[in-house]
């Protein structure tokens, strides 16, 4: 078997067993990036030191020294997460030449597990988008059909895992930015509980919604990455001291007796027929696995997108105020300070980012706070309450990740609302702070992946991953690769 067909846990086993050298492993993926990324554009930058690090790990293994639990495993990181001394752009011209002097906490943790950061992946500018078309560095292409979007904002991470330019990747999810591209690219993506993975070093889009998570081919790989990146961080005030339960050890526990809720009012007009069919098929699989399927209500979920498009832009308008041409690389000249501000922000931000800053600024401005931010935050309470009620009756909630499979590049360029509705099933989990995972459950007739979303109780990532893993034990969708030149040989 070639390396591109191996799962990360197998690669780590082979590295530990001495069957594979870290340098060979890293070189293999660097070569794949070299060969295929021109067509996919998953990466914004490639690490110049990855081989050196792999060399050091091989030396340490040879000398019998202890190494971390991911020693030698290449990993791609979304470019909105700071890696010390490496360019970190958040997909924006504003940060084109920004080099953070510090590591994000998750990067620190991955480094101390001896994982090797192979490159930084493309994304919608400041994570604002659902297609990775809003990147200063050009759009990423979906490996299943290069005229289609990979989803977003973590489209680079999703595409690179789907095309095996890296075994695993890290993304971030504010309204679906891990799950929606995972769904579009036929991989597994987990948005953890708010507060379970440190946000320190994640370039903020909307702080109360942002969460970092793994993007992998299998649930087991996601569990492996979670065991490294999750946990309390004193540098992030919103980081939770309530530890998530160990995700790895319970994976093989059968699903007998687990209660899975299905919210039928989400299966509405907007939902593509093919997607609905695949979700229903997958539901039957869960039944066969021993799950009890129950109907539930989430009466306020229909307002989630509206609430989200108030709250996220409000927070973003403030979070992005720091890009003013004074401290971080990009400045457009002006005769006085105010002119410099306006020119820098007018030229440094792309259209979608400007549009959302405008919306957020408007919604927070004097006289509108109650009508928008406060009202949306009250609706957010109702959405959270719905979940609290539902999780009294069920352990997981099942549904589609996205209403449709991947759409064409440029398809929604002139219609922001249509684009926003790509998040219709994913934003609620961010608003409520609960964990959710997308797993591949089939393909459309024209060969595009379809994803299923499971949502769980706060800090019960273990249940989500277990259910996804049990599903993957009896299905092959996660093992299916795009029929393209970068298709993996098995």
């Amino acid at each position: 078997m070639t390396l591109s067909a191996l799962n990360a846990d197998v690669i780590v086993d082979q590295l530990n067993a001495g069957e594979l050298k870290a340098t060979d492993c890293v070189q293999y993926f660097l070569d794949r990036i070299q060969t295929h990324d021109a067509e996919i554009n998953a990466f914004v930058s490639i690490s110049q030191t990855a081989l050196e690090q792999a060399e050091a790990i091989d030396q340490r293994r040879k000398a019998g020294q202890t190494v971390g639990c991911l020693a030698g495993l290449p990993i791609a990181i979304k470019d909105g997460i700071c890696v010390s001394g490496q360019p970190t752009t958040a997909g924006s011209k504003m940060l084109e030449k920004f080099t953070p002097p510090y590591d994000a906490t998750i990067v620190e943790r991955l480094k101390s597990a001896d994982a090797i950061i192979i490159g930084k992946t493309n994304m919608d500018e400041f994570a604002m988008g659902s297609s990775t078309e809003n990147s200063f560095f050009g759009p990423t292409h979906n490996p299943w059909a290069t005229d289609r979007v990979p989803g977003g904002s973590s489209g680079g991470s999703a595409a690179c895992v789907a095309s095996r330019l890296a075994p695993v990747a890290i993304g971030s999810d504010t309204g679906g930015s891990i799950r929606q591209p995972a769904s579009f690219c036929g991989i597994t993506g987990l948005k953890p509980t708010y507060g379970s993975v440190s946000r320190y070093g994640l370039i903020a889009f909307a702080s109360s919604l942002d969460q970092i998570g793994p993007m992998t081919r299998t649930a087991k790989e996601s569990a492996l990455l979670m065991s490294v990146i999750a946990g309390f961080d004193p540098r992030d005030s919103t980081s939770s001291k309530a530890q998530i339960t160990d995700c790895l050890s319970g994976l093989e526990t059968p699903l007998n007796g687990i209660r899975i809720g299905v919210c039928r009012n989400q299966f509405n007009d907007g939902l593509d027929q093919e997607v609905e069919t695949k979700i229903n098929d997958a539901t039957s699989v869960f039944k066969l696995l021993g799950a009890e399927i129950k109907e539930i209500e989430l009466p306020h979920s229909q307002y989630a997108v509206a609430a989200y498009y108030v709250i996220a832009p409000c927070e973003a308008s403030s979070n992005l105020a720091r890009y003013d041409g004074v401290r971080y690389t990009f400045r457009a000249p002006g005769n006085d300070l105010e002119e410099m501000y306006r020119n820098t922000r007018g030229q440094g931000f792309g259209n979608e980012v400007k549009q959302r800053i405008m919306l957020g600024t408007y919604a927070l401005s004097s006289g509108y706070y109650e009508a928008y931010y406060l009202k949306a935050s009250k609706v957010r309470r109702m959405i959270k309450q719905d979940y609290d009620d539902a999780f009294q009756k069920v352990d997981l909630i099942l549904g589609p990740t996205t209403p449709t499979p991947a759409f064409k590049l440029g398809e929604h360029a002139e219609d922001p609302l249509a684009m926003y509705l790509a998040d219709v099933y994913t934003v609620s989990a961010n608003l409520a702070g609960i964990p959710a995972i997308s797993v591949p459950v089939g393909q459309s007739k024209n060969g595009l992946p379809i994803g299923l979303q499971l949502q769980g109780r706060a800090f019960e990532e273990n249940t989500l991953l277990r259910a996804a893993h049990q599903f993957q034990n009896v299905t092959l969708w996660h093992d299916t690769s795009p029929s393209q030149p970068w298709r993996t040989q098995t």
Partner: protein
Amino acid sequence: MEDSDLTSSSNPPSNDRLAVQFNDAEIIIGLEVHVQLDTISKLFCGCSTQFGEAANSQTCVVCTGMPGALPVINQRALELSIRTGIALNCSIARSTKWDRKNYFYPDLPKGYQISQFDQPICGPGHLDIEVPETPGKLRQIRIERAHLEEDAGKSIHDESSLGQDSKIDLNRTGTPLLEIVTQPDIRTAAEAKAFLSELKLILNYIDVSDCNMQQGNLRCDANVNLHIPLGDHQIATPIVEIKNLNSFRSVERSITYEAQRQFEAWQEHGLTITDAPKQTRGWNDHAQATTLQREKEDSADYRYFPDPDLIAVTIKESQIKQIQKQLVQLPTELRKTLVEQYKLNPEDAAAIVSQGRGVVDYFSEVADGCQDSRIANNWIGQEVLRQLKESNQTIQQYPLSPKQFTELLNLVIDGTLDQTRGKEVLNEMVEHSISAQQAIEQLGIKPVDKNELVSLCEKLIDENQEVVEQIRAGNGKAIGMLIGKARKINPNANPGAIKALLSKMISQ
């Protein structure tokens, strides 16, 4: 004229306005005081708060607002805020949260200031001040709230008007400030100064801030307007906020100036609070005048909202009790103690208390040791404070311990040393850091034998018959001359004893 924007919609001067006298107007003043809390690290990061270091040498990814960096609140800043709240009789919030105040300025790295909007750490309270014209009479100034926030950095603008770049230093960025806001209860510039002095004293007493005004550790904005009686009603002039006052003198002078200016402006154009928005002015120390500050039209739209990077802080009753228990006696109580327990007059008590807690402690220890608080007050109030001032020392650095000082005073009280000799001994003690006994020895002071004193007096009476006659004729003051002569012959002779003896011998 800088106020042309106001005159455009003004009314012509009217006779009833011109008939009003400035003295009829009541000045309404509210203060917003920014106090730098005495922490070693900043409010949300571990950078030092030390003043005067090289520009931009005390910053990190958090306080420069580097993308991805996050704030974590400093425990001590919370504690000091609670301590201040208790000292100012404020209610302390059981739950307090953080909000973002959004505005653009180059010395505000994140584009927002982390502050507190609707749940300040300290709620309503009050501070009693002495009415400046009538000592001993107290007036209550209500505190509206006190909230915790981060300071901005420092902008150094080009003063040459050549349009050179401004320089930004972010060392001060993120330093913890407590913003104390009063109700508009202050009525005169002198009261404003009295309020600030008392506040500064309290903050010193409770070790919350050194309030060093030169370093900007206590800064003040004053909101000023006038209530003017006009016919059967009363009008209010537009409120002016005088920004960034950094000395007591500038507070006093700017308010005085501003009141007069508002009165004249009102007489001229008649605009009231309903006609004009709040205006921001600065104090020009050079011109001794307030000047209109150019402001952006949107500057007041701060778009406050809860900071999603920070979580709420709950404060437990037990924590407040604990801080309350540790709280030292405050100036007001101490003044009362000095008057009631140590029998000082109010002025003397205030003078001692105004010197800070160290001097009060020193005084009480000496007064307790020598059982004569008035003498202790005289000596500490005059000699010790003068010596400290001359040597630019604090009481903690004073070379004599309260015990050593008490020894000296006891020798004065029991008559072993007269005042003059006592002061000589004190100087000797301070100069060589020695005890009273050692100083007495070094100065060669010996007690004078009773017989020696009698023969000295006999000698004086013999040699100064005219003076003796004058005394006998009823000129009591003339005895001083004889005492002086006696001291020339024997410096150790106690003037009191000589006086008593001479009086007795002469009257016999």
